[in-house]
């Protein structure tokens, strides 16, 4: 009887206490901070996992995530269910225009000695942003003899797998200029396929941005896109993540955040980069690799 006491007519219920425990777990492991309004959304999304694991309650589910040997794959499941993956090509186009017109020329100058351009899309979801960046880099014509690498990472295995497929439905092109769609995608029965020359510039991996060691695998980057990811993070996770971005960027490298995100009250290690249509953050040219200042 006890085992199923929290099972309602539609399955297990997420009590306020269990929600608090679950929320803290997500914050600790993934940096994601759910607000109180997320309780019923979490209950709805994770209920199937409680049932699938044959657990009696969300409290048991918390214990499972915290202690079970099989918790790693379950975290993948939970992440997939609880994170928002909806995105599309050329999202926040005003920022991308600034990136193409102002940031890329600056990066071409900055990296011309090493002839290598490295851009990281942190929290790339299903890959639209990564391919968008690669298209912009190629259209710019400034990196034709460069070794260009656009790396997309996401915590969700499912998203990374989708990104690697590189096949998208028409809805993903709501903001894509027609000529771009024509030049960089091939329509097939299962959707629009990213053309090979763009795919060859891109690579994907699974990564928790709070995992400092794993983040080091990315190497040094000329630009980092992390758009609409930090809004889900608590203050501490946000700061840790920004510090790691700072460490990964070359001096002069640029950090681009979502339109509702800023580094206000997070760090002063970056300098503001005033673009014509947007604001971005730049690691000062004189900064050493790991230096940070508050």
């Amino acid at each position, binding site marked *: 009887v006890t085992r199923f006491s929290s099972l309602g007519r539609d399955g297990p219920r997420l009590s306020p206490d269990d929600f608090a425990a679950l929320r803290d777990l997500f914050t600790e492991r993934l940096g994601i901070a759910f607000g109180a309004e997320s309780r019923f959304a979490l209950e709805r999304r994770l209920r199937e996992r409680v049932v699938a694991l044959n657990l009696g309650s969300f409290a048991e589910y918390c214990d499972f995530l915290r202690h079970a040997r099989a918790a*790693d794959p379950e975290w993948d499941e939970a992440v997939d269910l609880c994170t928002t993956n909806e995105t599309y090509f050329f999202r926040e186009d005003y920022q991308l225009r600034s990136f193409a017109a102002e940031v890329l020329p600056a990066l071409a100058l900055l990296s011309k000695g090493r002839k*290598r351009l*490295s851009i990281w899309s942190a929290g790339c979801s299903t890959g639209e942003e990564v391919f968008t960046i690669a298209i912009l880099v190629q259209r710019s014509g400034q990196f034709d003899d460069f*070794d260009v*690498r656009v*790396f997309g*990472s996401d915590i969700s*295995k499912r998203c*990374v*797998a989708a*990104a*690697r*497929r*590189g096949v998208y439905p028409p809805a993903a092109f709501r903001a894509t200029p027609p000529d771009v769609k024509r030049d960089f995608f091939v329509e097939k029965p299962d959707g629009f*396929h*990213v053309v*090979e*020359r763009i*795919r*060859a*510039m*891109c*690579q*994907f*991996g*699974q*990564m928790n941005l709070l*995992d400092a*060691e*794993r983040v*080091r*695998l*990315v*190497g040094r980057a000329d630009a980092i896109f992390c758009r609409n990811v930090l809004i889900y993070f608590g203050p501490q996770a946000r700061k840790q993540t920004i510090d790691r971005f700072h460490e990964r960027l070359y001096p002069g490298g640029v950090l681009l955040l979502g339109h509702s995100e800023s580094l206000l009250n997070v760090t002063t290690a970056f300098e503001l980069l005033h673009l014509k249509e947007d604001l971005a953050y730049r690691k000062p040219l004189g900064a050493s690799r790991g230096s940070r200042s508050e």
Partner: protein
Amino acid sequence: MSGPAAAIAQQLVVDDAETRRLAAKGLAGLDANEAPGLLLKALADTDWRVRKEAASAAPRVGRRVEVVAALVSALHERDDIGLRNAAVEALVAIGDDAVEPTIAALRALDADGRKLGVEVLAGVVGARSVAALCLALDDDDANVRVAAAEGLGRATDAGGPSRDAAIRALVTALGGADDYVKLGALDALNRLEASLPWSVCEPLASHPLLRRHAMAILARSGEPGAVAALARSVADPSATVAREAVVALGDTIEQKSDDAELMGVARDTLRPSQVAQERVRAFAHREDDPKARGAALAALGLVQDPDDVPLLVEALGDDEVAERAELGLQLYGESAVGPLLDASRTAPPPARSASISIAPMLSPGGDRDVVEALRAALTDGSPDVASAALSSLGRAGEAADLPRVARFVKSSDARVAHAAGEAVVALAERHAGPARGMMTALDPSGDDAIVGSYLLRAVGDRGRSEDMAFLRAALAHGDARARREAATTLGALGGDSAANAVTLALTDEERDVVLAAMRALARMGLEEETLAGVIPGLLDHEAWEVRRLAAELLGRSSSPEAIERLRARLRVEPEPMVRAVLGAWVGTDE
């Protein structure tokens, strides 16, 4: 008498044998004037268990010099055989300290005693004891000489010079008049794996008593006369001699199969002898004697009767003798190809796959029938046969076989897929032009990514942008196998661009891709600093195989920082396989 000694003395005379055994056990560590006498008393006990216990306690009894002297004096004992034998056992257990006193006593001992002394020296192998044993080969007593010869069979443990000295002495003994000494010397020379010239062996090969034991010596001689004698001995009227001759001939074939002169001598001796051939065939059927059977199968390769090929093919399916059967078939040369091709279609799977593997080796000119048979075997229902056909096609196929074998790289059977990949690489290495032509039609994001990665492993060039673009696109493929092979090929091509791409592959969610990327980075010989920057991030990877390889790679750097990282990981690592590697690098047994 001291307290402990008195107690042991008291217990050694009670009726209960178990009490006496425990008393003998108590001699270990006893350091008293009475210790030698008590040890001898225990060694003379009527119960063998007490004697055994005392002999094993001897090395730990105090007053070593007196103890050894007492034990050596026991070798003079004529009546109590139990004591004498136990004294030998105790002296051997004591080891080096017993050698000189035993050698010194030899002059004063009677023949039985000297034989026991020789047994002690044979049990404590060292330069001094080997030298003494060599001298004992000239003892007046035949039993002492035989014991010395047998003892010298262990001289290898005393080091190279002692072994050489022992061989010289034993060879001299072979020239003596005493057959039993010669027998002992032959056994010893066999144990020493001595190679003797044919001139030394020749008299032994026809000796009625010794020839059976001489066969192995003949095999090591490596001279035509010895090989001919071996081949002749296959027809010896004695079944035992014939068996030893076949076994020795098999060893010779295995070791000298590429020596045309020796194989010619063996062949020319065997072929004219119907008796020898029938003997070989009979042994080739002896399933109860795999050693002789394997040797006979190899020897059939010298006889080269086409009727014997099916027997060899059948034996390919028997793990115990398959290697020797393969050796025999190789000696047949091209004349075995036809029967092998027949077997590749009709024999059971193990023999089919072996036939398909061997046939191309016997037909180096690229026999069209062989290649066609290999192609046909690609569709064999057995993965073992299909894998063997792919491997053989890789070696013997033509450019046209590239697309044929490429179809199998995505096989659901890992063995077939791997063999196909290796075959693609082998064919592409020999047919670079057609491989390049094939590349132009491949789509790195589609089903061709794996094939392309294999082709580029053979013909890729890191300076060609299209090669790198292909591999980098394959590194973003949805199929983990494509990503794995792309990482491996990038590792083979090397270069900064490849290293960057492969480093990012370390974030792949699939274990096999991460492992391939790690191996690729290691293969590229990245600087220690680079590896130290990325590998620690994998020490807590969810897959223990990745953690183990990370520990291995990091440990090789041997930097203090790396060792400290490994030490920290060892404190929390749950997987024994990983702990073993971590423990090895940080220098603990954990």
